[in-house]
């Protein structure tokens, strides 16, 4: 049963959708086999000291209601089909925030027989099977600080520009 009926979702549509999402994003938390360090920092972002509910952000129970998917963990081979199923159920525009060193680069497990090693490795394969991810933001950290998660959300929505850029210096 295909739910992705919008087959020509273009850049302009994405910009229009993002401009409507400036506040009150509903997020869905997807744990693909992490150690739970980043997961408790995500829960920490909801508690009184950091309180993202002042921006209207809240956790939802089903990917169908979600605007943004928070992904943690190096994707283990046992959870791979769950990840595909969950991402396919998210309606367009699909926004993903890869939180923590495991989801960005695979952490110490970037080369193990039981993990894929980071979200960027399956990004192209997902596009092949018609699960197009419109925008991804990578938030490094082990575990990622709650302030870094808020900063990542601000970049995703276009409120701030990223500070880290590629640079090469001569020794």
């Amino acid at each position: 049963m295909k739910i992705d009926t919008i087959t020509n979702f273009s850049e302009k549509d994405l910009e229009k959708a993002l401009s409507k999402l400036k506040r009150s994003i509903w997020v869905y938390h997807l744990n693909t086999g992490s150690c739970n360090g980043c997961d408790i920092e995500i829960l920490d972002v909801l508690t009184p000291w950091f309180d993202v509910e002042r921006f209207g952000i809240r956790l939802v129970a089903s990917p169908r209601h979600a605007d943004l998917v928070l992904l943690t963990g190096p994707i283990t081979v046992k959870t791979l089909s769950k990840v595909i199923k969950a991402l396919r159920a998210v309606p367009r525009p699909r926004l993903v925030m890869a939180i923590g060193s495991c989801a960005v680069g695979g952490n110490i497990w970037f080369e193990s027989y039981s993990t894929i090693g980071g979200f960027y490795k399956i990004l192209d394969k997902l596009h092949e099977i018609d699960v197009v991810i419109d925008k991804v933001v990578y938030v490094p950290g082990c575990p990622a600080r709650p302030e870094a998660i808020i900063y990542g959300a601000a970049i995703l929505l276009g409120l701030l520009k990223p500070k880290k850029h590629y640079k090469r210096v001569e020794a």
Partner: protein
Amino acid sequence: MYTYLSKLCNVDANGKFNEVYLNEFIQSIQGMARIEEGGTDFLRIVVLKDNLYNVVEKLLKIKDVYLRTMVSSDERTINGFFKLYYIFGIDTLSKSVIVEVPLTENDLIVPTLVNLVKAVDWYEREAHDLMGIKFAGRNQYRFVLPDDWPTDVYPLRKDYAIQDLMKLYTPKVIERAKEVEAEAVTIIPIGPYHPALHEPEYFELYVRGEKIVDVRYVGFMVHRGIEKLGESMKYNQVPFLAERICGICGFVHSTSYCQAVEQALQIDVPERAQYIRSIVLELERLHSHLLWLGVAFHLLGYDTGFMHSWRIREQVMILAELLTGSRKTYGINIVGGVRRDIDEDKIRKSLEVLKNVEKEFKTFIDIAVSVPQVKARLKGTGILPKSEAHALSLVGPTVRGSGIPRDIRKDYPYAAYRYIHFDVAVQDECDNMARALVRIDEIFESIDILRQLLDKLPKGAIAVESWDPEPHRIGIGSVEAPRGEVIHMVITGIYSPYRWRVRAPTYQNLPAVPIMLREIELADAPITIASIDPCFSCTDRALIINIKTGKIEGVPLYVLSRKKLEAVR
């Protein structure tokens, strides 16, 4: 009460010392096994597989013996055998007994011990999955590895390096996607057991009406190949890997690994380093119990409690960052000591934060526990009888809530716990409320221990100058984590561990969940599962299989739980 006293005086009901029982045991196995030198901390017994059942039966006659872990190891490059190590612990003597069974490659069938020691069930399945050792008299199926793993490839054997394994099995993203689509259109057949679940959820609850009839745990979604990876890293890189086994109680894993290597190589860690390790361990216990309280209140629907617990907990996280450099996954352990020091200024700030936390927590918890809805939900649910707790060799607050005072800090002392005084928190009621009260008592106890440690911090070096590795020595390190006992076993190699075995406390405690969940209402399931304090995101979702109608629905746990709150109001 009597067991507690008897532990103090080292006598049992007949007035005999357990030491005498141990000597009798050694006498009785003279013909069947060989005793090897193991040092003062453990006793090594080498036994052939035909005599294994008899030796273990005699060993279990000693009182207060429990199975700590079982390790399977591929030692063909050292002495030509596969080996199984069963590690038992005798609480009252602070001694471990290792039963070694050597096996040759063409005869890998071992008699099963499941009828004697219930706790050995999961260990045998794991040894079969990862090392290929077969156990006669029981059925085996895929446990840890995914279902489509090639049949004769056993990852932990030394035949394969990690790169070879990655060539033999690559997860097929496109095929999985097609599989997932196909599942969406098949009709779910009616029946109590459902065979077509490709990717089952964590707990399968079989219900009849509102009462739970049976539970099956399917898991190991988080298997990342840590033991195999540790064999390819150097000694001082492994603590960082060990710390990321669990993000909530990571420091206990790195301390336990370091203690195992230090015991194997007889390294003398300076006292200041041991005090610093104990301080950070107790800080971790504080933050973990406050986290558990918040999650438990959230599952019961009392969100105010959740917010207040985590508000109090945040100060502990900031203090940990001040002392070690990072909010979680501290990264200060290396073999032979620690990397960062604590100076006078930090001690002063820590004492201030602890005073604040104790004051705020005391006012908050008196109110939270007396809320009538919370009391009604926690009392009388999730009963775990004392006999079952003993038979399954459980650990941690789960077993201390059922009246057995088992605590590694007292039974097998490590780090700086020999030098301070504290009490072990025990309750007798065996229900969810008892386990919650044990954890609340431990929070106050931890604050007291921290004050003693910060007071008595001795001067000196924080790490050993240098140490030399020697291959093929065995070491065991165990630490009392917030969830129970963590035990690591290391067989040393030249630059990296030859074999590293990790056993987390939830692995030992999860077989208790089906017993606690029988014949209780569905809405009490989440708090019962959460009361053993599993790594929480593993038990986030549950699958309910209705036997009568054959319907399967996936529901988040807290939604299940909230339904009863309406009824209790």
